[in-house]
Structure formats: C-alpha cells, structure tokens
C-alpha cells in the first residue's frame, strides 16, 4: 500500500547491502539552461530557495533517504557558491553513523551535461552503478526496487546500461505540459521488458505525426507508445554510461543526444530500460512554471517527508504547520489584522503589517511587509522589503528586493536580486527585472547557463562584458538611463527590465509562474503550437526511414522531405564544426571518429560525409587571406594536400568522388563564388592528388550531358581538361591493346 516506503528505504543496513559497492550518485549542480535567467546570473539555480530551502537540499535529502552513500556534486557555473554552501550545510559533516558523503567536482569549461560526465569519467571516481540526477530534482521516491531491477537486468544483459525513472501522468494529455511547463514526451516502451525503444521530447503537435524507424517495428513484436509519461530525470546508470559519453564527445544533452543516440545506435546495442514509479513524487524544477507547481506540491505535502515542518532539510528552524496548510516559522510578527490564507509559508523573522492579505504564497526570512499589501500566489525570498499598498500576484521576488509604496506587480513578473522599484509603478506582466543589464545576444539553450566572471569559458562576449561592467553599471544606474533597451524602474529604482524577443514572448506564458490565460489554454489544448521549429535547429532528430501516422497504419513519405533537408544542413554544419576543431589541433583520428559517428547519428552516406568535408576544407581554404586568384588557388591546393588523407577516408567509390565534384560545383555557384574561375584548376589538382579519378570526372560529365545550360557552366569550363583526360585514357587503352 506504499505508506512506509520512505521509511523502508531508510533502513538500508541489512548485511547483503553492506557487502556491495557503496551506492554512488552524481548530482549535476548546473542545469546548463537559461530558463531561470536573470536570477541565475547571480546565483546558481540549485541554490535558489524552493519553499525557503535551496533546491539542492531536496535532492540531497532524497539521495540520502534512498541509501546513497557517496554523492559527487558537479558544479560549474558559480561553483564557489555551491561549494561554500555545501561546506556549511549539514551534508558535508554528517554524524559518525551516517555513511553519506558529499564531495564536489568542479570544472569551469563544461557547457553541458555531457561535458560534466566526461569530467567525472576522467576523475574515475565512479566504481559501480550510480544515480544520475540534476540538483533541482524533488522526489520522495523509493528507489530500492528500481535499483534491484537494474541490477538484475545487468546480470542477465550487460548491455542494459541505464534505467530511466518515469512517472505516469494522467489524465488529460495537456496536464503534464501545463503543470510543469515541459514539452510533451513521446516514449515507445516495450510492454514486457520495459525497454525504452523510442524517445522524442519535442513532438510536433501541429502535424500530430511521429516518425518511427521501420526497423524498430521489425525488431520488436510489440511497442507501446506513451504520451502520458513524465520523465523524472532520475537515471540509474552503469559506469559504461560515462565511458559512452567520453567516446562520443558530441553528446551534450542527456536526453536529446545520449538517449536518442543510444536508441539509434545499433552497433553497440546498448539498451535503456524504464522504471515506472507509482504513488511517490518526482519532478524537476525546470522553469518558473514548475517552480510554482512544485512549491505548491511541497506545501500540500506530496513530498513528505521533505516538507517544511519535518526537519529533514537544513532549514535551520522549526516551522509549524497550522490549519489549512499554513506554515509558520517560530519568530514571525503578524499584525492582528493581517490575514494569512491557506497554503502559505511565512519564514523566520518576517513582519507583516496591518490589513495585509497573503494567500498561497511563500515568504522568506527577515522580510518586512507593510500595510495593506496584497500578496497572492507569489514567492518572496529573504530580506525583501515591501512597502505599504503594494499588490503582488503570481510574482517571484528575489533576495533584497525593495518595493516602494504602491507598486503593482502583474502576474508573471520576476524581480531578481536587489532590484528596487520606485513608487506606484506598475510592472507589466511577464517582465523580468534585474540589476544586471540583459546580455545583448540571447544564448541558445545549449550554452552556458550563468555568466560567471570566474569561469573562463564564455564564448559570447556580451556576457563577459556584463560581468566586467557590473560595478560600473550599478553606480551609473542611479544617474542616467544606461541603454536604449533598458528601462528604468521608476524614480529611485534600480534595475533593468529585460526585453523579451518576439519569438520568446509566445513561449513566456508557458514557463511563467502566472496561470495560463484562458484563451492560451484553449488554444493549447485544442490545436498545436507551432513555435517548436525555432528551437529545433540544434536537435538531432531520428532519421525518417519510416513514418507512422497514429490513426492509419499505412506509410507515407511526404513529411520526410523537409526533415531530410534540415538534417543535411545540420549535418554539414556539424561536420564543419568538427573540421574546425581539427584545424585547432584535435587529432585527425578523433576527427575521423567523430565524423563517422555524426554520419551514423544523422544516417548519412559516405558520399554526404565526403561532400560536407570537402565543403569544410574549401571554406577553410577561402578563409585564408589572399590577394589574387593564383594565391587562392595555391592556398586551396595546400589545404587539399593537407587534408587529403582525411578526405580519402570517405571517398571509397566513384559515387563519393562524383559527390565531391557536384559539391564543388555547388560551392562555386552558391557559397564561395571566388572559386568560380579556379574550378578547372582545382579539379585538375584533385585529379593529380588521386582524390578524384578520371572515371569519376568522365561520368560526371556524362551525367551533365542532359542538364540545363546553366548547369553546364563548369562542364564547359573544364572542357579542355576532360578532353585531355579522354585522350589520355584512349592512349592508355591503346597501350593496353
């Protein structure tokens, strides 16, 4: 009946378990995303308070309760803050009888979960199966059974490297998205073995079409597709997972790259299984929407025993639960006429003035709230001053914020650290205000989450300059309007309102704390949202070799064309990036390996590789400065000579050679026109270097016979050369005779 689940897992000291390797866990204290900006510019996400307790506390407490003995906290951005916090916390100095140790692993140049795992692999601290979670996981799940299942499977099948914990989420299909603001996930699971066969987290609602690999259906007699499962982002991994990340150094994202990569990769045959948890709670704070939802779940005690009045978490004081789910710290000064409504938390040392009204909100420590203040479904962190007559609804207010009298925060407003808002100002809905100016370029999802002056990895100059200019800006704030895009927050206010780009504005309502507006909700549940394309560009999608439309079982290839086109563009970019790394000094062997793996993951042919690589070489050649065509030609030849061997790896037959020539044509025509006059010259060079054989050139010419005039420019240009080739071959034949 599952009542004592947590308790049972706590008594993990039976002899059998003592004999095993200590259970380890890797906690990623960096989400590698930007969803919590601007707050995360100043404080790492894992230290943001969730119901007045830093998020990492929930994760650590849960890990402790499931019997984990060693936790490695990987910190990247703001690593010093995380380390300082852990050193002060209860977890790093446990009493003698608790075998629970927390140690930090620090790296400044990790920009993704993949990088983090590679760093951990290099430290070789993981000895056995481990639990991989991110530092924003809130759960009270009992992992004992999942661990056992994982172990049993491993004994039978060493290729089962990972067990993914999923959770059922019913009943309406949109609940998951509207509750936690996550994307819909489509999972294909084997009904009996629970093996994960298909994973797609950005299913296109518009078409209501998902693409399944034909082989998937051929190999598996049964496959159950779910869109009602929630991914808990709790994984039980075998040590192989780390080495897999190291072998495939293009794996960045845990789900998009690693899981999908493993599912597509049929060479190694690694398998991922799922474990479905019932009754217990598991969720991840991914965005402001889930922050709001999970906070409310905690206050409603779904996460028991990780609730404010049980001192599992290092909250430091005993909050008392009163009727209707009101949590009150011992030292609160509440005016007699103030009203605190149901499901609220008032932190230690907070003062609330006359006639103030608070409902379903969390208020931190040492806040001062004036008279006639209305706070509704908001999150107020520590040391906040709210003067008389303010109105807050569905807002998030960070440490040290000062709201002067009469300020109104509309729903979805985020005020970052130490922002001050001047009198009677109305902050419009969904605005984010920070004392730091917005970086001019919005980074993509995949890049670093936080700007940190100490981490030297930031490629985008805008952020670094922000960090450097921080002090100066703070001073100048009071005096003048800093930039055109920065709005002042009222008289005597401090802070910039971050502007939101159009594309993001559409998304804003999904991830915000504010409730979803009615019309959006209807739109969301009925039709689909078409904003997915914009975020898709960095995603490797599963090759569309077969397509399954849910309500008909026929196959159809119409939709596949666009996919392929995008894929090949992506692929080219990837190859080029890889090649650039080769230029930067990465070992050629690694480059070959990486391109090969790219080829597999994009399901490309050798010809595509050769084409893409050739393009990359040509591009790099054209990047070298030159004054005239002769110099360019010389440069190009030099580059070709240099990378000849690399290129030859992919040129295995005439087809690839022809592809290279066609690509060359394309380059001359479209991308790098400078090569136009040099076409024959370089073609000749390629021939000389044995990269392209005369047969290929001749068949290329043959293919072009029937083409339009416009397509024949280069054939014509190379006429002499071809003629010469023909003659030469005839001579050869003559000699042979």
């Amino acid at each position: 009946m599952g009542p004592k689940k947590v308790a049972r897992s706590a008594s993990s000291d039976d002899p059998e378990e003592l004999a095993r390797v200590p259970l380890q866990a890797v906690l990623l204290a960096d989400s590698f995303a930007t969803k919590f900006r601007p707050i995360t510019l100043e404080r790492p996400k894992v230290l943001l308070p969730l119901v007045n307790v830093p998020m990492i506390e929930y994760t650590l407490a849960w890990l402790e309760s499931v019997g984990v003995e060693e936790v490695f906290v990987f910190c990247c951005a703001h690593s010093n803050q995380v380390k300082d916090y852990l050193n002060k916390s209860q977890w790093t100095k446990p009493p003698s009888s608790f075998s629970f140790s927390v140690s930090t692993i620090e790296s400044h140049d990790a920009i993704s979960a993949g990088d983090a795992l590679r760093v951990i692999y290099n430290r070789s601290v993981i000895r056995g199966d481990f639990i991989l979670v991110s530092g924003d996981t809130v759960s009270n799940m009992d992992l004992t059974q999942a661990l056992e299942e994982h172990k049993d499977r491993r004994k039978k099948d060493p290729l089962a490297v990972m067990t993914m914990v999923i959770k059922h989420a019913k009943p309406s299909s949109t609940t998951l998205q509207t509750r936690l603001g996550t994307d819909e996930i489509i999972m294909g699971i084997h009904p009996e073995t629970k093996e994960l066969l298909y994973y797609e987290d950005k299913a296109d609602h518009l078409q209501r079409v998902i693409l399944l690999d034909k082989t998937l259906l051929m190999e598996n007699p049964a496959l159950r597709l779910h869109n009602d499962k929630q991914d808990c982002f709790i994984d039980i991994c075998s040590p192989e997972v780390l080495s897999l990340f190291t072998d495939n150094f293009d794996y960045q994202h845990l789900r998009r790259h690693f899981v999908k990569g493993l599912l597509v990769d049929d060479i190694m045959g690694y398998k991922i299984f799922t474990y479905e948890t019932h009754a217990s709670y598991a969720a991840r704070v991914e965005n402001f929407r889930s922050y709001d939802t999970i906070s409310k779940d905690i206050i409603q005690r779904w996460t028991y025993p990780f609730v404010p009045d049980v001192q599992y978490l290092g909250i430091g004081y005993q909050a008392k639960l009163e009727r209707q789910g009101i949590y009150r710290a011992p030292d609160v000064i509440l005016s007699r006429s103030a009203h605190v409504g149901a499901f609220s938390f008032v932190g230690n040392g907070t003062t609330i003035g006359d006639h103030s009204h608070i409902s379903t909100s969390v208020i931190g420590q040492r806040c001062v709230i004036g008279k006639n203040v209305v706070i509704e479904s908001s999150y107020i962190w520590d040391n906040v001053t709210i003067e008389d007559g303010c109105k807050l609804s569905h807002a998030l207010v960070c440490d040290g914020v000062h709201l002067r009298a009469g300020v109104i925060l509309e729903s979805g407003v985020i005020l970052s650290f130490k922002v001050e808002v001047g009198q009677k100002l109305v902050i419009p809905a969904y605005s984010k205000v920070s004392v730091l100016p917005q970086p001019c370029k919005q980074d993509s999802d995949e890049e670093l989450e936080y700007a940190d002056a100490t981490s030297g990895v930031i490629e985008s100059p805008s952020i670094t300059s922000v960090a450097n200019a921080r002090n100066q800006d703070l001073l100048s704030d009071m005096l003048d309007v800093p930039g055109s895009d920065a709005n002042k927050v009222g008289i005597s206010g401090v802070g910039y309102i971050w502007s939101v780009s159009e594309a993001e504005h559409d998304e804003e309502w999904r991830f915000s704390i504010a409730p979803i507006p009615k019309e959006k909700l209807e739109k969301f549940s009925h039709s689909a949202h078409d904003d997915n394309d914009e975020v898709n560009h960095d995603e490797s999608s599963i090759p569309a070799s077969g397509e399954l439309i849910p309500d008909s079982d026929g196959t159809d290839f119409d939709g596949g064309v666009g996919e392929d086109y995008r894929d090949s563009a992506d692929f080219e970019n990837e190859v080029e990036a890889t090649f650039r790394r080769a230029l930067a000094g990465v070992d050629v062997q690694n480059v070959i390996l990486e391109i090969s793996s790219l080829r597999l993951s994009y399901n490309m042919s050798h010809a595509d590789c050769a084409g893409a690589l050739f393009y990359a070489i040509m591009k790099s050649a054209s990047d070298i400065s030159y004054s005239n065509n002769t110099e360019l030609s010389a440069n190009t030849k030099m580059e070709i000579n240099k990378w000849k061997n690399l290129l030859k790896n992919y040129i295995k037959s005439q087809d690839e050679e022809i592809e290279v020539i066609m690509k060359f044509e394309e380059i001359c025509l479209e991308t790098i026109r400078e090569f136009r006059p040099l076409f024959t010259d370089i073609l000749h060079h390629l021939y000389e270097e044995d990269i392209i054989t005369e047969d290929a050139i001749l068949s290329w010419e043959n293919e072009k016979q029937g083409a339009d005039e416009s397509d024949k420019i280069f054939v014509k240009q190379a006429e002499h050369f071809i003629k010469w080739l023909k003659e030469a071959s005839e001579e050869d034949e003559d000699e042979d005779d």
Partner: protein
Amino acid sequence: MPDVQALVGDFALKLKRRKVEGSHASARQTAELLRSVVSQQRLPHAGQAAVLIDAVRAVGEQLIAANPVELAVGNIIRRVLHIIREEDLSSTTTAMEGLGLSADSDDDNAGDHEDRPALSAAAVAAAARSALRAPSLHTLLEDIPESAAVPHASSSGGDSEGKSKSAADKSLKSRKLKHDVIEAINELIQDIDTCHEQISEQAVEHIHQNEVILTLGRSRTVKEFLCAAKEKKRSFRVFVAEGAPRYQGHVLAKELVTKGLQTTIITDSAVFAMISRVNMVIVGAHAIMANGGVIAPVGLNMVALAARRHAVPFVVVAGSHKLCPLYPHNPEVLLNDLRSPADLLDFDEFSDCMDFASRGGSPLLHVVNPTFDYVPPNLVSLFITDTGGHNPSYMYRLIADYYSADDLVVKRRSTS
C-alpha cells in the same frame, strides 16, 4: 565529550528525518542515549545533581525539537530527570540521617526504585507530593535550585549538611550518585523492553471466553496482548478495522491468523455497524496525556464514540513510556503529524486537479492526511499499562509518580 555529542547529534538527526519508527524504539533509544550522557558527564563536587540535570536537559531540548511529534522522547527525558532528582534526594536523605548504609543497600534501593522501596520512602513520598502539587506558574517560572526543588525541610537541611562533608566523602557520593542514576536508567530501559510482556500478562483478566474484540490498525502492544490471551487457551474472535489510509490492520490480521486467532477484517467505516456485536474494544495509543486523553492513530475517536454509544468498554493498552505529563492543550504538544496525501490518492491520477496553471493558480483540491486522533478521557474506559489497569481519572496520579513537576518544560536553565 565529543563522542557523546556525536551520539546526540546522530540520534537527533535520525529523529529529524523520522528514521526512528514507533514510540517504543524512540523511547528505548532515548533512554540508552541518556545513559551514556549521564555516564560520560564529568561531575564537580558540589551540586552534582544540578549538573546532571542540566546536561540531560540540554540533550533533551535538542531531541524534543528534533521530532516534537514523538512524545515518547520527551517522556523518557523527563523520566530520567526525575530519576536524577530522586536519586539525589535519596542519597542526601541517607547522608543526613547518617544511617551509614552500605553502598550495596543503596543499590538495592535504586534497583527497587520503581517498586517504591521502603528505605527512601520519605524522599519518594516527598517527591510524589511535590509532583502532585499542581504545576503552578510560580513553580514553572521560579528558578529553584535543582536539589532544593522538593520542598522538604529535612532534605534541604540534609543538602547543606551533605555539602559540608569532607571532600573524600563527596567524591564517593559523586560516584555513587552517577552509579545510582545509571542503575535506575538501566531499570527504565528494562521496563521499556518488558512492557509488552507485562501488559500482556494481564490479558487473561480482561479477555474472556467467546468474546469479540475490536481493534483498529496495528499496534504491537495490542498484538501481544491478544496473542497472550490466545496462548492461555482463551478462545475469542477479533474484528480488525483496517486503519485507512495506512492499512496496518491488514498486517495485524495476518499476524493474528498465523497465531490461530479467528479474525475478521472490516473497513473503518463499518465499525459502527459491527460494534453492537463487540464485547470490548482494545486499541493501542501514541501517547497518553496527563488528563487521561489519548493521542491515538487516526479513526479511533470515531471508534470510541461508537463504543460509548453501545456501552462497549474502550480499553487502551500502552507501555508507561507513552505516559506523557503534558496536557493536550499545552503549547509543546504538537498534536498531529500530517503525512503525504499520496497515502490517500494516486498523484498521477489526480495530477490534473493539481494543475495550478490552468486553474487560476490556486489549488482547489486539498488533501489532509493526519496521523493522529485525540480521544478525550471520558470516552476511555480503562488504561492497561505495565503497572496494571487504571482509570483515566487516575492518570495524573501515575504521572506524578513518574515525573517531577519541574521538568514539564524541558529547557536549559540558561535559556529559560
């Protein structure tokens, strides 16, 4: 004493994380911890009892704060404090009376402590009297020296006289006091260990042939009580209300069936329908309060009301470590522990009701899952503890035997 401190921290953490299950385990572990605290406490020559009391109080405050819901912890701490006071008193009494008693006889004293030994009867009587006195505001606030806490003229006189004795005598006394206290705590631990047997010994007196017994949920004490009756060849039937939402009644039913007892499981809601066929209700308790009220697993108030309606005796079985000197209205008593709603509902099935985003931001579905009920004393017919059966109105008297009025609020003196 870093090791003691570590032990205390350890246990406090366990309590905080709710890793100690049940009042029996909590009580036992608390007593063991306090034994090591006492044994490692270095004592000065003067005012030893005060030092000991302070040490125990400091630890006690920490432990009670760690899990205020588990009242057994506080009970044991108060019991130990009371033991220290009594031992101190009895040793000063003997010193004053100059009886020249050997240490051995004093040890017997300590050993027979629970059975009201004849030797220190005067002291015990005094202590009992003092405890009987209502815990007035005056006594609570007044910072009375611990040794003089018992307003007994002869004992305070003896105190000063004892203090003026030679240093050698004092050191002997110090060892003796500590020794006595540890002995008494051992006694207490043994009491906790054997409480189930002592309670179940009385089973045959209460359960008669062919009776029908009703219980709710699962309590170890109840189980042993019923099994003991069965072992003594009583044949009776048991109705087990399953005890939603934790359904521990199912476990109990299983255990009873393996012992060969005729068992019927009913839902909690069927209690009223079945109660007319029941001869006696026997239930366990989380804590017995000073007024004779019971903090019991949720659902028992309803059972008690049904039993009252049909004039069925409502019997509560509990070890004396569950006897709490506090009143249910005391601010220290945190009456309830609200557990996860997951016991009641499947979160997954109800997740759309928890969808705040699409429902205007405030949750419409509330789930309350309390662990405990309060059964007022007038609904309880009889308490069966390890010292025998008692009326609810007699509880205060028992409490006066076990606890000293000065310990109701466990706080370090410096902070009070």
